[in-house]
């Protein structure tokens, strides 16, 4: 029974540590993926002056050539050119500041998953004249629609500064409402058609932002550095440069994860010490007898530590199998945190977390657990050495 308790402690401790890693890994990866697929994309290119003031005249020179070259690049999956400006959105009851994205919907679908987050209406009507497409469509977030008190097909007015510095306004009809996993983004961003926004702004076919998604997200850094060399006059930024707080958060999560694992291992250590100490004290007579008949102290010490190691060797595979089983199951179905969805979406987290086991962590976690078990056995083993055989033999 005692052995089962130690094996269970090791298995549960290992499971807890690895599950926390899988949970955090899934959480962070999802958060990054939400940010990249909704807003950031893997790489963005701008006129170097644009990010500071978002002046409509700071467009990318020869943007169409840059886009054409990028489309020929084998590492690039999709490219989308955007017009971006800031302005006011007004309904009949209220107004709010927004960032307006002029996009080509078919291109944008490749770099942003907003089209998949539409909860009412459509992600722009098909452009064929035969379908009866109406002009000046806008797609906005549910959060913003609620704030403005507007519904699908309601009319709103966008007011912004044109390239000549004059205030200009346009009336738009809501074609679709989306709900992404980032409520801040939903409240601050609207999408209109590229050509329509270009005409109102006076920028025509000029582009403020080129969003790039790569075939392999692990190649972001080398591809970005290649583009920086290729277009020295442009500002090429990876998602970590565009959102340093996101990169910092990822690092912070790593540290939190190690702290949590440390606490779990500490709890495991006390659990094993307690169980092994009980085992040693209960077997005092046995240890007394062994010392009486000639078992030396190093052997007694080694025996207690070895017992702990053997039990750990059984507990570790049990813990690993348990983790693989549970994580695989939850990776399919997800951990539903919808009761916290409001709070989670404010921070850009999904309300369903899909844990993902970083296989590279198997070995370090296993080694840490094994070391914890061995260290935990030292105190009980030292205790066993303190027994006096003449007294210990007579213990009941």
């Amino acid at each position, binding site marked *: 029974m005692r052995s089962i308790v130690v094996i269970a402690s090791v298995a549960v401790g290992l499971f807890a540590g690895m599950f926390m890693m899988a949970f955090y890994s899934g959480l962070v990866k999802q958060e990054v993926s939400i940010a990249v697929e909704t807003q950031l994309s893997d790489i963005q290119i701008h006129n170097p002056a644009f990010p500071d003031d978002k002046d409509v005249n700071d467009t990318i020179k020869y943007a169409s050539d840059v886009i054409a070259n990028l489309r020929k690049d084998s590492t690039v999956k999709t490219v989308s050119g955007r017009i971006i400006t800031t302005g006011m959105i007004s309904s009949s009851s209220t107004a709010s500041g927004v960032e307006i994205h002029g996009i080509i919907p078919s291109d944008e679908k490749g770099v942003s998953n907003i089209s998949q987050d539409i909860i009412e209406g459509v992600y722009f009507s098909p452009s064929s004249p035969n379908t009866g497409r109406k002009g000046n469509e806008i797609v906005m977030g549910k959060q913003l629609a609620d704030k403005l008190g507007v519904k699908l097909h309601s009319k709103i007015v966008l007011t912004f500064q044109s390239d000549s510095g004059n205030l200009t306004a346009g009336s738009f009809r809501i074609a679709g409402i989306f709900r992404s996993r980032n409520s801040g983004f939903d409240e601050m961003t609207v999408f209109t058609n590229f050509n329509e926004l270009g005409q109102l702004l006076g920028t025509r076919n000029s582009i403020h932002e080129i969003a790039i998604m790569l075939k392999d997200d692990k190649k972001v850094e080398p591809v970005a550095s290649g583009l920086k060399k290729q277009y020295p006059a442009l500002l090429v930024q990876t998602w970590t440069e565009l959102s340093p707080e996101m990169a910092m958060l990822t690092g912070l999560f790593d540290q939190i994860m190690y702290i949590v694992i440390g606490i779990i291992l500490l709890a495991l250590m006390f659990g094993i010490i307690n169980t092994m100490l009980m085992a040693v004290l209960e077997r005092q007579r046995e240890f007394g*007898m062994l010392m*009486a008949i000639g078992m030396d102290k190093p052997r007694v010490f080694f025996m207690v530590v070895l017992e702990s190691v053997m039990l750990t060797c059984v507990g570790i595979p049990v813990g690993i199998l348990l983790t693989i089983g549970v994580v695989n199951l939850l990776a399919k179905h997800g951990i539903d945190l919808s009761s916290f969805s409001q709070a989670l979406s404010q921070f850009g987290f999904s309300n369903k977390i899909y844990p993902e086991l970083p296989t590279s962590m198997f070995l370090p976690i296993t080694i840490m657990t094994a070391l914890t078990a061995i260290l935990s056995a030292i105190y009980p083993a030292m205790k066993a050495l303190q027994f*006096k055989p003449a007294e210990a033999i007579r213990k009941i």
Partner: protein
Amino acid sequence: MNYIIESHNLSKVYNPDTIPVYAVNGVDLHIEEGEFTALVGPSGSGKTTLLNLIGGLDYPSAGDVKIDGTDITKMSENKLIDFRLHNIGFVFQAYNLIPVLTASENIEFVMMMLKKPKRERDQRVKELLAEVGLTDKSKNRPSELSGGQQQRVAVARALASKPRFILADEPTANLDSKSTENLLEMMARLNKEEKMTFIFSTHDQRVIDNARRIVTLIDGKIVSDTKQ
């Protein structure tokens, strides 16, 4: 005269700084090779303490214990453990076998500590099981043996290292009459045929009747020492 065990003015005092209790008080005892000696006396007379001192399980407060001329009271704890392993066999009242090992493994265990080769161990285990009449129980664990059988395994274990003598603390206290008779008969045979020296502490009249020398202790002192 060459004695296997000699003690001179041997004393063990508990609570020396508060209320001193003399468990053993100035004992001079000499045991020759091949003796079959019983230490007798009422509870608290110091029998077990004297055995512990002779067996090097405890250090005396005064006096010395010499085994084959070597003073074991001057040895360090580690040296004493090694000395016990090579020279002294122990039989305890509660058998104290290792519960997870079989009868043969319990016997073999001592020889493993002595780093004897496997073939020699197997041969010796076989001989000892035959000697204590438990050849057919070699694979049984202690829980599958009667009290008498467990005590025979304990005697076999004590003999495994070919010690100079065996100390047995109340070896029959937990046994029924038949088991006691069998155990005594076996130990008497070992004493006679193998010249093995036995020293018992006992209350049991049947053991006393079988002993050839009876040392009586009262309040830690030897009050009589007779041969029969």
